[in-house]
């Protein structure tokens, strides 16, 4: 529900990103990346995030935003959302 006149910060911590990464690994088959390929993994993270945002009808940005992060925190089934 809209929170009445409280401001809410919208930056994400390292832990938030790690949580989001775990979520995408579990449900969107984001593969663990060997160290050192950060740039490539960033692309994979963004493309998997876009897959998740498309599945749930969110704005497909490939960037972690508030709606996406909020949805990731909702209790759910552990089966992946994309068939592998």
């Amino acid at each position: 529900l809209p929170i009445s006149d409280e401001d809410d910060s919208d930056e994400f911590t390292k832990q938030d990103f790690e949580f989001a990464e775990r979520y995408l690994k579990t449900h969107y088959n984001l593969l663990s990346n060997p160290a050192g390929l950060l740039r490539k993994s960033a692309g994979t993270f963004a493309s998997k995030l876009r897959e998740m945002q498309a599945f749930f009808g969110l704005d497909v940005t490939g960037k972690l935003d508030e709606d996406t992060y909020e949805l990731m925190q909702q209790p759910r089934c552990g089966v992946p959302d994309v068939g592998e």
Partner: protein
Amino acid sequence: YNFFPRKLKWPQNNLTYRIVNYTPDLKKSEVDRAFRKAFKVWSDVTPLNFTRIRSGTADIMISFGRREHGDFYPFDGPSGLLAHAFPPGPNSGGDAHFDEDELWSTDSNGYNLFLVAAHEFGHSLGLEHSRDPGALMYPVYTYTGNTGFLLPDDDVQGIQVLYGKGDHDPHPDDHPKTPEKCSPNLTLDAITELRGEMMIFKDRFFWRLHPQMVDADLVQIKSFWPEIPSKIDAAYENSENDHVLLFRGRKFWALNGYDIVEGYPKKIYELGLPRSVKAIDAAVHISETGKTLFFVGEKYWSYDENSQVMEKDYPRFIEDDFPGIGHRVDAAYQKNGYIYFFNGALQFEFSIWSERIIRVLNTNSIFWC
């Protein structure tokens, strides 16, 4: 609805299941019943039959476990991952696992075991997750009530692609469809503002529409307020006390955010409506005057929120005071000096000041369709 790759399904219609262990959160009989009801959800709409065995290996082995529980797909402690199941196949195929770190319940506390099990058994039979937020196979947990569960139409269509129809569906015409906000025939049950957002009610859902957003979030009423009925007649916001009031039949609830205000539900005749009124069609609060209008059939009443009494000389005919909007109202809200009356697939923008209709719009134009 979606299927697993290669549309995995069971080659036979007669399937066995075994409850390998139990959760301490519930009595064994409650667990047995939850699983039995969950299988019935699927056997009612297909030719599938489920038989429980108490030893040996069943097609669908059901167990509770926490963290790493033997299948390399660890659970994660309270909330988060609730359960998972494997698609049809030998060995672990079809098996369903429930996270023991959750609080399992037979109601809206914690997580309702029947609802989660019905979802997981959908996987055990070959359904993947659905994108339809009203479907049982939607991945995010939504409490949809404790009695009278009806398998949503999306799930029925999916499972019948795999196994065909049964011949004993007790509710063949009642499988709820998720409303389409841009349907040209969209009609509404109720509508209200809430702290600047719009809440647009239809069947067991409401859309949340933020003024700056085009996309509306579709949410199930029960997932916000488990005690509220899964369909409402009317709603309005009294912004003076930050309450939203929801009406169903002769009862109404006052909500403050997620919480139901103490002392509710109350009866609509406590507002001064005659006892002959069984339900109201629509309600709208006019902040400029402090009055709330209640629409019932062809008439309407005016309630003074300050003095908390129904005004004299009411009811009046809708047509007399709001000419042109028709003889009944499905839903109504007011904004910037206009009242928007919804009647079927049309909405009428009525100017409070000039007391006449300014525009006639499609109901679905509220979603920018």
